[in-house]
């Protein structure tokens, strides 16, 4: 039990070089599969421990907390760990077939190794309680995701990866500056000690300028990483041209982890009710609303459906940030809950894209003609994922929208409620385009061969997500309970 926090990170980290050692794609895949399922098991154990016993901390090398690096798992960490390891455990069974046609044989062990390193980085960010360690893990996950995106089948993947590298590095450098300034103020890097020192030394109440600068850098850097609206430019290309598996994994986890970091720094470190937080809420409210509207409208006009879903991701990130910008208990709960629900629905929708490109070869809107008959299971999964994205009752998406509207009602922000509902309406439009083409348009006349249903290894992870989308739309106790606990921790940090 004691070693669980470090086991969470070390399992995929050790599995990554093993993948390279054997140089066989089958062995590499098996190792990666075992590692992700093991780490999923660990994160379930951690979540059980956190909810029943309480937070768990682990000092690396036995050095006590403010001096050594300590891993600290509370409800929020456990929640994010569950999202990341759960999605990677679902993506790996899916990966085998999908990777086989998108990436050439000799590169496949490298692919799995990079994927494991990326998982390590994301899990590390969520597990560590040390600010600098968080930066290192962030760079670990980012560097491997640049390489993963660059492995995409089309040459545009390379320029997309390069663009992401430039913007991601600028974001990471901003985060580094922010952490450095915080360190110069407090002399500590431990997240909990940071929060404590800021209060003990009266730095918070004195409207310290260095602190203001530090949080400005952190917020902008993290906004770049999580693709908040005006800083989202890297995201559409990266998601569109990356290999299907990478898109599924990154869309479901990477931006969520960046949002977790934002929550940690802005709520966990500076705490609730301070000047910074009040201004932060106002500053990120406008980009969040703009993201919901602009990205949804742009999504309607996309012909490449993977790109359409990428824009929809930007809009969904807007919902999460909107929840956070309320800075109330309900708002935060909604934002954190939506991290989980969005991982479920976007993971599912991108899995459908992977299956379509597996059978048809590309995912332009015209390729969907008649797919409703040829790939009934895949396309009905798309319909359910789409319903969840719109926020139809009995799906996971409804729950997070419900809490968002509830939070806006508590603040009495009617205009925001209208915008939330408008965003859902726009989602109906862009999802309907695909559904209409797939089910109601006749297929191409010059059909050479019958492309059948996607193979079972793609359908099973896809349909487990379909079931998860419906299950968590009806029985919300697990994500909601964890999200409420996490919110209580964040709000009680002052």
């Amino acid at each position, binding site marked *: 039990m004691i070693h669980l926090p470090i086991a969470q990170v070390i399992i995929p980290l050790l599995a990554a070089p093993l993948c390279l050692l054997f140089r066989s794609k089958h062995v590499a895949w098996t190792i990666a599969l075992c590692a992700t399922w093991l780490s999923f098991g660990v994160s379930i154990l951690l979540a059980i421990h956190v909810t029943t016993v309480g937070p768990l901390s682990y000092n690396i090398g036995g050095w006590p907390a403010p001096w050594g690096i300590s891993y600290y798992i509370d409800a929020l960490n456990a929640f994010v760990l569950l999202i990341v390891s759960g999605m990677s455990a679902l993506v790996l069974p899916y990966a085998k077939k999908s990777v086989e046609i998108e990436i050439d044989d000799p590169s496949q062990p490298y692919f799995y190794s990079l994927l494991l390193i990326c998982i390590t980085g994301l899990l590390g960010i969520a597990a560590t309680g040390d600010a*600098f360690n968080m*930066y*290192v893990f962030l*760079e670990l996950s980012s*560097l491997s995701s*640049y*390489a993963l995106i*660059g492995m995409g089948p089309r*040459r*545009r993947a*390379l*320029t997309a*990866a*390069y663009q992401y*590298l*430039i913007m991601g*590095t*600028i974001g*990471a*450098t901003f985060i*580094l*500056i922010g952490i*450095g300034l915080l*360190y*110069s103020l407090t002399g500590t890097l431990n997240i909990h000690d940071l929060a404590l020192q800021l209060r003990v030394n009266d730095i918070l109440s004195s409207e310290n300028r260095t602190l203001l600068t530090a949080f400005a850098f952190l917020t902008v850097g993290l906004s770049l990483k999580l693709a908040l609206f005006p800083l989202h430019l890297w995201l559409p290309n990266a998601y569109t041209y990356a290999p299907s598996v990478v898109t599924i994994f990154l869309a479901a986890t990477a931006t969520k982890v960046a949002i977790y970091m934002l929550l940690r720094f802005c709520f966990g470190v500076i705490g609730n009710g301070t000047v910074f937080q009040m201004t932060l809420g106002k500053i990120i409210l406008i980009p969040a609303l703009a993201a919901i509207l602009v990205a949804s409208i742009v999504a309607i006009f996309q012909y490449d459906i993977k790109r359409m879903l990428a824009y929809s991701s930007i809009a969904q990130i807007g919902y999460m940030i909107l929840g956070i910008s309320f800075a109330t208990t309900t708002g935060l709960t909604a934002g954190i809950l939506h991290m989980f629900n969005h991982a479920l629905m976007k993971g599912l929708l991108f899995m459908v894209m992977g299956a379509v490109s597996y059978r048809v070869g590309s995912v332009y809107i015209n390729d969907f003609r008649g797919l409703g008959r040829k790939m009934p299971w895949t396309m009905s999964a798309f319909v359910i994922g789409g319903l969840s994205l719109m926020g139809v009752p009995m799906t996971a998406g409804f729950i997070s929208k419900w809490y968002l509207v509830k939070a806006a009602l508590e603040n009495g922000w009617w205009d925001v409620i209208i915008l939330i509902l408008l965003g859902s309406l726009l989602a109906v439009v862009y999802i309907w385009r695909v559904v209409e083409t797939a089910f109601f348009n006749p297929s191409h006349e010059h059909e050479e061969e019958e492309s059948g249903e996607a193979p079972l290894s793609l359908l099973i992870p896809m349909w487990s997500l379909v079931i998860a989308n419906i299950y968590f739309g009806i029985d919300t106790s697990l994500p909601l309970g964890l999200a409420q606990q996490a919110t209580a921790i964040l709000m009680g940090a002052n």
Partner: protein
Amino acid sequence: MNWVGHYNYWGAIFLMMSGFYVVISRGNLIKKLIGLNIFSTSVFLLYITMGKIKGATAPILTEASQLTASPQIYSNPLPHVLILTAIVVGVATTAVGLALTVRINERYGTIEEDEIRAKDDSL
């Protein structure tokens, strides 16, 4: 406010802004990477400056320092260690960036951003 005394910080800010400008304004992928390197190097300077105290020595406990009555002033070694890690991260980023540039050059035959865009649009 001691403006001149903070020359290290001015240096860091100058490097940061010039690096950032190069990243934004240049279309050549290699030049962009050089700018990115200057940009992230400025942060190393910022960190090192934070740890340094005027007239302080390295934090090593010697017999001579134990004998003197006046307390010795030490520089903080932690920022140096942190920056060692950040340098490694920077080198790795540059390596990935250069590798991508090589691949872009192989597939596109150019590393100028506007030419790449023109080739993409012509398809």
